[in-house]
């Protein structure tokens, strides 16, 4: 749209030549200094430093040429290694995954990407999702022309459809104007190594041990050196590219207000500071680091102001939204539909939708007699308001199980030793015990559950959450580990699980297996945890 394909290709070549020359200069300077240092060290240790001719220390012309050739070779090797599969490496470091299309929000993201592409009339873009709570979005492009747009789970749960559309349009704008490619190349030169080392140091031995402390500090030195180089190279990028991408995004969606809103939301939440994503700050829609002299993005207020001018609106709109945002989670998640029948629901019957009308009610024993009933029939509990498929009703699952009798359970419940059944909780895969309703979750899936906001909770859960918080925080201050550490066996590996409180802000007692990184929640504990986590998030937003 903005540039023709040929033009972009031409600019690519210039850019690559320029970047390689810069790399050569950096390497030449480094090698030159190292060579000098080596000479001085050698002379001061093995020879008489005072009487040695000073001329010896400065490299001669011949030495300079040799050093230069070495620098060129290293720079070229560096360039080719770094520029191979750039997107793949970046995804590995950021832990970005392909979308799970059974989850509605991911399907929505895919739809939005396709929609915006229609407005540009250009080719395919793939979506990626980062499983993390911070709010940001990025785009990458490879040498072979493959392009990707990535969004974090946190952002997906915070933005509505039109805001998400604006963010995607911004990233698409980077891609069609071609500057996404430069940003990706520049970031991969040193950023990949910085990010990789940072990811290693996250999972490294704890800092308490001596060896851990030493390795960590050495790693920290290397990281800060590479990060300085990264900052140097990245400062080549012009801040103007963000303004341009904002403008193209508005041209595509004709909705400047939505983009301003999403920028505002991103700027008010955790953008990814002190994670591996800092190394790729220029790729993101709002930079992950704090603003500084090295900023690769223009100030966010300026961007928002320009967009608000385009929308002919003033800041009161944004302030109003801020209020809504604070009240959004928590209140909306309260399930206000009145409960009919209450807890006696299991004794009541089921209605079944057959031949275009509702039949029933049938009791459980009657249902077992019905030959025509399949898992695809729509059913409704007597007195309840929700309609679902028969196979989705938890009490009826057993009816359809005999069809495939050889159900082998992967894990069994640590309390009742019954097989755990797979359950989609907030579209994350978990295993639930049908008897005690406890839930088994791995760490990465737990992360998704805490970020997503699809479920709503009853009033009782909110009250319980308050109680848990008051009671447990006192205990948390004294000691984190509770004094009955080993109670349950891990359903996965069979070893003893530790019982501890999850965190200070969400002090729910959980069982965790440190070997498999897997969590066991008793009934309702996961709900309480979600409520507490939400309250915590709201506080963060308010404090900023």
């Amino acid at each position, binding site marked *: 749209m903005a540039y023709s394909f040929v033009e972009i290709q031409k600019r690519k070549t210039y850019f690559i030549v320029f970047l390689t020359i810069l790399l050569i200069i950096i390497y030449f300077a480094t090698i030159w200094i190292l060579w000098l240092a080596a000479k001085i060290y050698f002379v001061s240790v093995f020879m008489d430093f005072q009487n040695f001719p000073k001329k010896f220390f400065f490299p001669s012309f011949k030495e300079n040429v040799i050093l230069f050739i070495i620098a060129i070779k290293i720079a070229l090797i560096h360039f080719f290694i770094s520029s191979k599969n750039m997107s793949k490496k970046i995804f590995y470091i950021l832990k970005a995954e392909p979308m799970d299309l059974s989850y509605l929000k991911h399907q929505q993201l895919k*739809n939005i990407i396709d*929609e915006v592409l*229609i407005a540009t009339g250009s080719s395919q873009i793939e979506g990626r999702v980062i499983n993390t709570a911070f709010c940001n979005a990025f785009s990458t492009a490879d040498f072979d022309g493959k392009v990707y747009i990535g969004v974090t789970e946190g952002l997906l749960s915070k933005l509505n459809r039109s805001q998400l559309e604006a963010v995607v349009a911004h990233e698409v704008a980077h891609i069609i104007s071609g500057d996404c490619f430069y940003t990706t190349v520049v970031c991969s030169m040193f950023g990949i190594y910085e990010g990789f080392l940072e990811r290693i140091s996250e999972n490294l031995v704890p800092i308490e041990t001596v060896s851990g402390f030493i390795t960590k500090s050495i790693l920290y030195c290397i990281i800060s050196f590479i990060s300085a180089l990264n900052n140097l190279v990245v400062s080549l990028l012009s801040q103007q590219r963000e303004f341009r991408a904002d403008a193209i995004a508005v041209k595509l969606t004709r909705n400047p207000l939505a983009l301003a809103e999403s920028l505002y939301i991103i700027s008010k939440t955790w953008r990814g500071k002190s994670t591996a994503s800092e190394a790729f700050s220029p790729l993101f829609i709002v930079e992950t680091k704090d603003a500084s002299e090295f900023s690769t993005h223009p100030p966010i207020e300026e961007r928002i102001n320009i967009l608000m001018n385009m929308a002919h609106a003033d800041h009161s709109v944004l302030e109003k939204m801020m209020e809504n945002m604070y009240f959004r989670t928590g209140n909306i998640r309260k399930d206000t539909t009145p409960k009919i029948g209450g807890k006696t629901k299991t004794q009541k019957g089921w209605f079944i939708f057959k031949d275009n009308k509702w039949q029933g009610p049938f009791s459980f024993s009657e249902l077992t007699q019905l030959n025509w009933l399949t898992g695809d029939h729509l059913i409704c509990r007597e007195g309840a308001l929700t309609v*679902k498929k028969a196979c989705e009703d938890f009490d009826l699952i057993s009816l359809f199980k005999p069809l495939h009798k050889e159900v082998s359970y992967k894990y069994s419940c640590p309390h009742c030793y019954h097989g755990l059944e797979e359950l989609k909780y907030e579209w994350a895969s978990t295993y639930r015990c049908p008897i005690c309703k406890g839930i088994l979750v791995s760490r990465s899936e737990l992360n998704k559950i805490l970020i997503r906001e699809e479920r709503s909770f009853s009033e009782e859960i909110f009250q319980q959450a308050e109680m848990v918080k008051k009671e447990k925080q006192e205990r948390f201050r004294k000691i984190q580990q509770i004094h009955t550490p080993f109670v349950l066996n891990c359903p996965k590996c069979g070893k003893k699980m530790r019982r501890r409180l999850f965190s200070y802000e969400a002090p729910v007692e959980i069982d965790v297996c440190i070997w498999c990184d897997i969590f066991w929640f008793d009934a309702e504990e996961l709900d309480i945890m979600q409520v507490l986590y939400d309250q915590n998030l709201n506080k963060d937003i308010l404090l900023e």
Partner: protein
Amino acid sequence: MWLLLLILIILLWVISVYNVIVAKRNNVDNAWAQIEVQLKRRHDLIPNLVKVAKGYLAYERETLENVIKARTQAMQAINIKDKETAENFLTSALRSLLFVVENYPDLKANQNMLKLQEEIISTENRIAFARQYYNDEVMRFNITIQQFPFCFVARMFCISKKELFKIEDSSQKEPPKVKL
């Protein structure tokens, strides 16, 4: 001799202008094809929607029938003017159906329905974007064939203005608002 040269230059100019116009006309045709793809997508979605909603909306038969009728009409329309009116009718029928769905909490919470709603919203957006792209291309084409020296060439080859794909009123620019 000079005259011949002048005629040659004019001829070359006419050819180049004609080529520019043809390229733009093809862009417009391509954009129109995009719209048709998306309209087809919408027509294919409607039977699914009706199937899912039928169980729940026993008392809203009229709304459902309206949607089906509008779909048949829209599928039969051939030229742009007919399509415009038929598609506008379908949009309003769909919107009233989605409005009715809001009153049925169990249907609203149904997973299939949620997915279908998302698909419908997405399709409406796609149509809107495709229309935007088409109208932009048409505008570029129309400007080219109406500009001063170009208009002679256009008239010579009987190239006429293309029509924009309009919507009824400005409020319809928004896709149907559905709370998810």
